[in-house]
């Protein structure tokens, strides 16, 4: 599954990088009749001013992927850090961090984005900043909740009893245990950020002069493509592209999860030896009680 995900993602990344070569036309040029149906020269037809949709789609991958990737990295790193630190250290640190998370989570995202778009201007950098700095809150809370459990587990307690520092424990014991959740969160965040970009573009809040999949859908909806046959070639492809990229992130996440924690491998229950004999069952103090 991971291979499939990686393959799809790679396909899109390649398309984004080599867009000028792959796209049959320059999407900024009007090369067809407005609302033209698909033809040999324009396999996906033309948009409302006569630009080739296939070329638009290919070029749009650049913006959508960039926004998705950057915001996701930003948010996941920040979220994991806050979640682990807060969940592990508890007490005042946790309280402050989590209350900060609460404040951010209580701010309605879309209105905030509208306000910020109005204040800062509708361009891509602001979009990335605002999305990234707001969506870390969710992963933080979730990761923290798992860290709460992990911190009580046997081997963490053992490590503390043996005198390990907080930092060491957080990095060497807690982090590996929460990595599956972090991976799930990475996937989720990529999902959310790409979707947010699309939703914001659809509502007309991002820069309509830039080509992104959300912007293509904005024009498609605004020019009534959903009511005409054009939905087939103008609406379906961008939506499918978004879905494909997000799904590929998901598959990757899934594979990542398996790789990191061999106990989660999709094999038959533990009574059969796992495929990797190099991972011994750790001895745990609590089983001796």
């Amino acid at each position, binding site marked *: 599954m991971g291979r499939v995900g990686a393959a799809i993602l790679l396909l899109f990344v390649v398309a984004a990088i080599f867009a000028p070569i792959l796209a049959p036309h320059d999407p900024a040029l009007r090369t067809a009749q407005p609302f033209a149906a698909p033809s040999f020269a324009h396999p996906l037809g033309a948009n*409302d*001013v*006569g630009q080739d949709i296939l070329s638009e789609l290919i070029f749009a991958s650049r913006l959508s992927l960039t926004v998705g990737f950057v915001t996701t990295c930003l948010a996941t790193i920040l979220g994991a850090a806050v979640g682990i630190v807060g969940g592990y250290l508890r007490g005042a640190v946790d309280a402050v961090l989590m209350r900060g998370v609460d404040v951010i989570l209580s701010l309605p995202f879309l209105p905030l984005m509208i306000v910020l778009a109005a204040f800062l201007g509708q361009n891509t950098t602001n979009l990335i900043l605002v999305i990234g700095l707001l969506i870390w809150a969710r992963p933080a809370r979730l990761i923290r909740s798992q860290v709460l459990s992990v911190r009580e587990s046997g081997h963490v307690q053992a490590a503390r009893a043996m005198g390990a520092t907080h930092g060491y424990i957080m990095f060497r014991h807690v982090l590996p245990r929460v990595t599956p959740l972090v991976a799930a969160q990475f996937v989720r965040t990529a999902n959310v950020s790409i979707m947010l970009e699309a939703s914001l573009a659809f509502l*007309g809040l991002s820069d309509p002069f830039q080509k992104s999949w959300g912007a293509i859908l*904005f024009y498609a909806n605004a*020019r*009534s493509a959903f*009511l*005409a046959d054009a939905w087939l070639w103008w609406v379906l492809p961008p939506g499918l592209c978004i879905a494909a990229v997000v799904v590929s992130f998901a598959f990757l996440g899934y594979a990542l999860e398996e790789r990191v924690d061999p106990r989660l491998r999709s094999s038959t229950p533990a009574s059969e030896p796992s495929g990797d004999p190099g991972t011994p069952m750790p001895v745990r103090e609590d089983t001796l009680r």
Partner: protein
Amino acid sequence: MVRGALERSWRPVLVFVLGLLIVVVSSPTAGGAQQSQQVERLTIATEADKGNLTPYSFRPPPGIHSELVGLVYDTLFLHPYTEEPISWLATEASANADATVWTVTLRDGVTWHDGEEFTAEDVAFTYDYYRDGPPNRYTHHASEVPVVESAEALDATTVEFTCEQPCPTLDLVTLADLPILPQHIWEDVEDPQTYTDLPVGTGPYRLAEYVEDQSYLFEANEDYFLGPPAVGEIEMPIVPDPSSMFLALQNGQVDTATRPVPPELQESLGEARDVELVEGKRFASIFYRFNAESPPLDQQEFRRALDMAVDRQALVDTVLLGNGRAGSPSFMHPDSRWFEPQDAAFDPEQAGAILDEAGITDSDGDGSREYEGEPVSLSIIVSANDPLQIRTAELVAQQLGEVGIELVPESLDPGTLSQRQNALDFELSSFQGVPHLIGDPTQMIESLESLLVYSNPEYEGLREEWFQSTSVEQQGETMRGIQRLFVEDPPALTLYYPDTTYAYNSSAYDGWIPVEGHGIHHKWSFIPEAPELLGIETVAQRTAPPEEETGGRTILYALVVAGAVVLLVLAIFLLRRRSARGSDEDQI
């Protein structure tokens, strides 16, 4: 025996023929007065919530407001874009020699929705209220253009208006545009903007229910002075999403939509069952405002060159798919009686020449001109909600690029756009003209100062002339002069006039009439006498001329009856002959 059989057989035949006659005669006559159709309920989808429909419940575009207000309130004369004033709440009006004092006679026997009598006091009160109170879309008629110094009720049905300066179009425009408010309610209202009760007017409909952001429900005013309206109940759900709105129309959930049909849907919508399209003649325009204080826009030559560098027809063809007309510097809408045709010259070479002469040249050969050492780069702000405006801006940017001027479009949310427009914080701004702005001169004259910040010494002189004109003809002449001036020094770049095509379900209601400046969704589509008063045909009258149809039917009836009679006579004759011949033919 046979004879008996034959004798018996003519009875059923007779019965049959008689039956045929009865059926034919009793079938309803078709054609005739289409407008006397009585419809119980109509569903009209509208695109935005416009508040509780008092004249003060303004909400920003899109959506229609004044036509909905017009369902509930009446004006003194029919509407402001007619050739001659058509009496409505007022029956006649006459002015003194220099058109500063008008005497208006009101209709008798009109009542408000709450039963109170409508009198001249209400009219006098209304004009004072508009003049002295907070502004709304109508108040400039009393407070600026013209200034109605006083409105006095001479008796129960006579009002005398006095204007500060000659106001020859008082009956044609002013009295035809302002909705009359009931004094007994509004004299206690301190802040009109917080008045949230349902409105009380004299109009053909009463607003029975208003659910914020969801729907309106209108009920017919059976005691309306022109008789009960043709539709008993009108419900108006508010549907902001255009796709949903037209989808609902297609599958019959609504009977019509107040949003004009976008160019790309006209073909497919027109093919849907029972859905018809009609051109509404609502005055629509898109133009670009200049900020004439921001260089190089402060130079008249530069503005003129911009005007010439834009290929308006290409915009109409690409963005509107041909459904519209290229803009003209005249500023008035081509369908308005005040319009003075001027050719918008599209001449990029000439534009380039003008720029060269003005010293704005491309000195470093990089394709863009410089002004005072800096490359010329203008920004234009457009509404992020309107893709047509966005696309237009992109195309205009390409066109201007070809004469070496860079145009950078910037899209803003409607709130920010509004604020920046009002604060004059822009270089160019896309603006959608409301019908009133380009339909009659009063709003235009007022807006030339407030909205368009137009200053031109020659215009000042013409404006003074306009204010001193004592007759409609004189004002018309001055307006034509002003529009000729606009060719040399345009107050704004008028890009195009989009067609305003509306769709309706013809099997639900077909009494719609397109009234210039108002579209089809207004009270006159529901008042049976209105088409005749206005001299406009309803959509039903256009599609099927009733006279021929009635004629056809009559002939058909005549033929059937004649045929039946002939058959009857023939049958009797034949039977008689058979019985006369007796049993000869029986022996076969």
